């Protein structure tokens, strides 16, 4: 059996590893469009913040590839012939396959206005790009960051860490508005101010202006003013890389459509990771999920099906943990109050319990008794008892956002993942954090003991 994996990232590498576990003799080829070995894309945030040198994010050694007998081919795929099972590379080489996994990932969406190709417009995207960004950040004096998500915040932190006078443009007034509420946004904003970051609310750029050497010199704002800067960082989302499947019969929507077994509509062609839109049993929709753990789980599922098993992909509860400006943040499950209004929240819609959702926030309890130092928030989202919970009619916690102190992160994750009836917690929701925390830990322990 000849396996070909296009993509040397989290999904592709996990798939290769899994195939090798189940098929010791098959030939596995990995096609990588980038010159380096497999690296951690989320880890690039720590490269720009200077916490690790660039080579440190490379997560596999050459020996590892050799040990698993993975043939790593550097080159870019140009076209795909599903009839004859061939992949043609840009340099003219041709790779045959019996089973194909497309794990080409996604790339940063380019700046949406004129000037996006100027020297000084940067993205947190590939390892090579990040090295360039680092060089520029060391020379940069004043940087503008645009984008409303975590990548933008990581860029802001990275630039600020390098002593760049960093200005963060927000279209509205809240940080990471799809996730944070007012209080949480304010909390992080305080930390950012403390690190010397300037946050400009209700500010939008409309053009990036260059000098005679085609270098960024300023951003034009919506109100017509010019804002001087020599770096312009863009983090407005990612776009799946679908060029390869464009002129093939492989079905796509926002990404490659695959069933629960990661199979496309063409036999023996699979897709996983950021370039795959996976059928989800809960919602009956194909969902695009661009998170690192999802890419790993999808890669594993694809591999199991490629070696002949029948393994359905069960989408896990969305989970993200990050560290921004020294503040630990964990986001579990569904925490957006109105997911339908926000397209990018489609991936976690299956957790939404519609209008029965009740919100409890504790904005005034930052300095609670159990908080040892610094500010902390905890937000729980409760789902209504319409039969979705495993216990039948109980109320379940469908999401949580934990900022600062992380003692509750694991207990809450267990309660959310196992859809535990949260009725015992209801009397404590309005009590002080200490009591609530104790009850959450107690409930999660009892669940784990019964498991």
């Amino acid at each position, binding site marked *: 059996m000849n396996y070909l994996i296009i993509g040397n990232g*989290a999904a592709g590498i996990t798939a290769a590893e899994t195939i090798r576990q189940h098929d010791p003799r098959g030939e596995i080829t990995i096609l990588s469009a980038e010159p380096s070995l497999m690296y*951690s894309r*989320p*880890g690039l945030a*720590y490269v720009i*913040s*200077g*916490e*690790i*040198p660039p080579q*440190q*994010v*490379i*997560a596999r050694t050459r020996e590892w590839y050799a040990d698993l007998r993975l043939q790593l081919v550097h080159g870019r795929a140009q076209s795909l012939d599903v009839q004859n099972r061939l992949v043609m590379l840009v340099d003219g080489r041709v790779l045959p396959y019996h089973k194909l996994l497309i794990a080409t990932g996604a790339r940063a969406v380019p700046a949406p206005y004129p000037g996006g190709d100027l020297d000084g417009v940067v993205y947190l995207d590939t390892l090579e790009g990040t090295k360039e960004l680092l060089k520029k950040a060391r020379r940069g004096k004043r940087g503008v960051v645009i984008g409303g998500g975590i990548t933008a915040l990581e860029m802001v932190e990275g630039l600020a*860490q*390098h002593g760049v006078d960093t200005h963060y443009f927000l279209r509205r007034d809240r940080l990471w508005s799809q996730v944070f509420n007012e209080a949480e946004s304010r909390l992080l904003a305080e930390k950012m101010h403390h690190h010397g970051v300037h946050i400009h609310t209700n500010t939008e750029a409309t053009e990036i202006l260059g000098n005679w050497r085609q270098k960024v010199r300023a951003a034009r704002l919506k109100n017509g003013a010019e804002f001087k800067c020599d770096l312009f960082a863009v983090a407005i989302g990612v776009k799946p890389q679908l060029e390869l499947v464009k002129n093939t019969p492989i079905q796509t929507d926002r990404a490659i459509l695959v069933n629960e077994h990661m199979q496309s509509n063409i036999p023996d062609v699979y897709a996983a990771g950021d370039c795959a839109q996976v059928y989800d049993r809960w919602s009956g929709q194909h969902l695009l999920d661009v998170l*690192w*753990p999802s890419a790993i789980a999808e890669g594993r599922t694809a591999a199991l099906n490629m070696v002949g098993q029948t393994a359905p992909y069960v989408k*896990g509860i969305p*989970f993200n*943990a*990050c*560290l921004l400006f020294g503040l*630990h943040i*964990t986001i579990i499950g569904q925490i957006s109050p109105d997911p339908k209004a926000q397209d990018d929240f489609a991936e976690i819609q299956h957790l939404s319990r519609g209008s029965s959702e009740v919100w409890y926030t504790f904005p005034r309890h930052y300095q609670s008794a159990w908080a040892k130092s610094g500010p902390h928030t905890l937000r729980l989202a409760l789902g209504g008892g319409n039969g979705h919970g495993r216990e039948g009619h109980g109320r379940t916690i469908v999401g949580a956002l934990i900022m600062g102190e*992380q003692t509750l*992160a694991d207990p809450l994750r267990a309660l959310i993942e196992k859809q535990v009836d949260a009725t015992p917690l209801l009397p404590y929701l309005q009590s002080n954090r200490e009591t609530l925390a104790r009850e959450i830990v107690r409930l999660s322990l009892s669940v784990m003991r019964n498991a």
Partner: protein
Amino acid sequence: MFKRQRKDQPPPDAPIHLGLVAADATRCIQCGLCGYNCPVGIPVRDYARQGLTVDDPTCITCGNCIQACPRGTLRWEIKRDA
């Protein structure tokens, strides 16, 4: 030179002999901060990404990797027979 200062981190000469470093693979993003901060050069990432306990005999249980992990992947696992 840009390495962030970590004042809260215990010095590597303060061993905590009771425990081993354990990992939650689902949190690991394989960034390598753990191994980079290991004073004895254990490739902690290779353990963490597989959810394995760091049972390397050279581990001095300083806890630097636990402190360094930005995603809370690593934790102490207290030996039962200790």
